[in-house]
């Protein structure tokens, strides 16, 4: 913002809008003493960390560690049974509107590819001309433009996941959660997804992703949150994590010999 003149009453509304769009991020995310219990079993316990704007965070850990659960709790799809998830904003509504999530298996509506993207924007109450423009834009940028009018569910698995990512991208979120987005894709499709995630990161979207693919984690991570048996064992910058992990479990995990 370069506008330094005092805000006049009549343009305070537009001022607020630009301001909100440019720098009132919902970050940092503060997770403190987070716990989740289901059927008497502690699935996550005593998890605390802060995520600030900037680096890409990869949540790692063996199957069943609670990675997906942690993403869902942060995104607000589940209510924690203890502890808190706090975003830097006033109303919780505003925070949820600035997040998006891509799931392991894309859930696409029984509509065309373009309509799937349009739907997400419609829920943000965006006027239709703007929706059309953004939809065109993300379809082009994800290489899906030629599928715009094709039923989304007839696309290949990789294209479907790309579309799910495009739908998230269209929302221009502050934070994007990705839950094993390439787990069921072939290497080429996985690479395409990684490229888009990288571009979104470059454009300022905070990436928080789970994966159990070590090579992918090494390619994408700036920092690693390592979870094991429902507990967070470390939050470490990526280069350090992959060379000298802090805890024995992470070392064993990286050697591929973690005991369950």
């Amino acid at each position, binding site marked *: 913002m370069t506008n330094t003149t005092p805000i006049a009453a009549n343009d305070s509304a537009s001022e607020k809008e630009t301001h909100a769009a440019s720098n009132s991020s919902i970050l940092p995310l503060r997770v403190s003493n987070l716990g989740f219990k289901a059927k008497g079993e502690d699935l996550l316990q005593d998890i605390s960390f802060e995520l600030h704007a900037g680096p890409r965070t990869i949540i790692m850990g063996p199957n069943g560690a609670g990675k997906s659960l942690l993403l869902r709790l942060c995104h607000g799809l589940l209510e924690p049974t203890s502890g808190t998830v706090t975003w830097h904003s006033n109303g919780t509504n505003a925070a949820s509107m600035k997040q998006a999530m891509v799931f392991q298996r894309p*859930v696409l509506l029984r509509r065309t590819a373009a309509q799937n993207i349009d739907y997400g924007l419609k829920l943000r109450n965006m006027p239709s001309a703007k929706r059309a423009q953004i939809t065109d834009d993300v379809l082009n940028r994800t290489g899906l433009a030629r599928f715009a009018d094709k039923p989304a569910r007839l696309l290949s698995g990789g294209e479907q996941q790309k579309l799910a990512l495009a739908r998230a991208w269209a929302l221009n979120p502050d934070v994007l959660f990705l839950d094993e987005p390439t787990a069921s894709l072939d290497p080429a499709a996985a690479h395409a997804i990684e490229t888009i995630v990288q571009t979104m990161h470059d454009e300022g979207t905070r990436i928080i992703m789970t994966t159990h693919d070590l090579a992918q984690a090494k390619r994408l991570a700036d920092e690693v949150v390592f979870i094991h048996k429902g507990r967070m064992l470390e939050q470490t910058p990526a280069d350090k994590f992959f060379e000298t992990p802090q805890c024995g479990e992470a070392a064993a995990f990286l050697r591929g010999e973690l005991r369950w």
Partner: protein
Amino acid sequence: MNDISEAFATALQLLISFDPALFEIVGLSLQVSLSAVAIAVFIGLPLGAALALFKFPGRGAITILINALMGLPPVVVGLVVYIILSRSGPLGVLGLLFTPTAMIIAQALLISPIIAALTRQVVADLWVEYAEQMRSLGSGRLRAIPTLLYDARFTLVTAVLAGFGRASAEVGAVMIVGGNIDHVTRVMTTAIALEVSKGDLALALGLGIVLIGLSVSINAATYSVKQRAEAVWT
């Protein structure tokens, strides 16, 4: 045996001669049943979807009740509507008894639970798949209702057809509240009942054949459209 061939001959003759009495009866049947379906769709789709999506005390009981009402006997519905619309009934002043409107009301009551119950099941299944993604996109449950109904559209066609089938085939309710008055409230099923009691089995069977033929063509048309659409959209 003789009756059956005679019936086919009668039916064919009625059809090719464009018998105006027959077409009047068929027309009224379609008008009454399709209107009832339209009303029941209006009630049943949102009601079924709401039952699938919202959790509230008594939801289980309402679901059981609506499922049970799918088997509602038409004569009972007819009787209840008759009591309500009769001169001394609560809505007697409207003077609706023995009019097509009364028949539409009765059939709509009869098939709304069918459409609601089937919709509830279809939408509940779809919600299992969609819930997380839709909440992530920022949709509340209320906003999800039109989305789910739209995305389940091809499956819901079957629910609507079930309702139409029930409405066009029933005789008990329309007989009681319509009265089978010639040129006013006579529909195919009540006409068949009348011809049977008069002993004109051939005409009755002829009408029956027309009724079945109509039902088969409506279902066949819907089926082929649905097949083609489903191949593309699921």
